[in-house]
């Protein structure tokens, strides 16, 4: 009987530990690794360059969590090269961000779902006037 109680106690303790760990893992995703922080600040710095082009409609948010130069004619000719460079840089950072978050949380296979979540939230949080892609891939002005 004493043996039985001992085994039970160990089981309950083990269960509590596992449940606490899984509850914590579910509450938050790890987004504070050095790699992710570097991407976040690089994207934040780039945003000040891109902001006016989102507002003009030259650059829009795609449905797959990226950005695109949707109407180059809205960018002054002299700036066009720079803007498409920034768009490419931003997309590189975004792809790396989704990949790094999945990896930092021990589930590289979550990358696509993380990207899909971001895609939805970028579009949801975009200010009125910006161009975003709808589910059919058409550009719509928010």
């Amino acid at each position, binding site marked *: *009987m004493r043996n*039985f109680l001992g*085994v*039970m106690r160990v*089981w*309950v303790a*083990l*269960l509590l530990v*596992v*449940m606490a760990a*899984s509850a914590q*893992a*579910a*509450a*938050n*995703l790890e*987004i504070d690794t050095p790699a992710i922080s570097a991407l*976040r600040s690089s*994207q*934040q710095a780039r*945003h000040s360059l891109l902001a006016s082009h989102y507002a003009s409609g030259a650059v829009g948010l795609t449905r797959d969590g990226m950005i695109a130069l949707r109407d180059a004619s809205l960018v002054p000719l002299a700036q066009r090269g720079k803007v498409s460079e920034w768009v490419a840089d931003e997309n590189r950072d975004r792809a790396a*961000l989704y990949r790094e*978050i999945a990896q930092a949380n021990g*589930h590289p296979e*979550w990358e696509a*779902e*993380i990207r899909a*979540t*971001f895609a939805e*939230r*970028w579009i949801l*949080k975009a200010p009125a006037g910006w161009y975003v892609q709808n589910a059919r891939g058409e550009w719509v002005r928010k």
Partner: protein
Amino acid sequence: MRSRMMVVGAAAGCLLASCVTINIYFPAAAAEKAADKIIDEVWQLKKDSAGVESKVPGEEKAK
């Protein structure tokens, strides 16, 4: 006695397995929260969200 222990052991094992299984599923709510935090930071949206970033108004102006 022995069979009772085995039943309890098996039950506890199932419970433990189910806890582990939960973690394999994609945590959609947590991902949304993480995305919102990063997007707010990158686009410099609301600084007062849930008091996470408690910025003094004067500090923002100085930037």
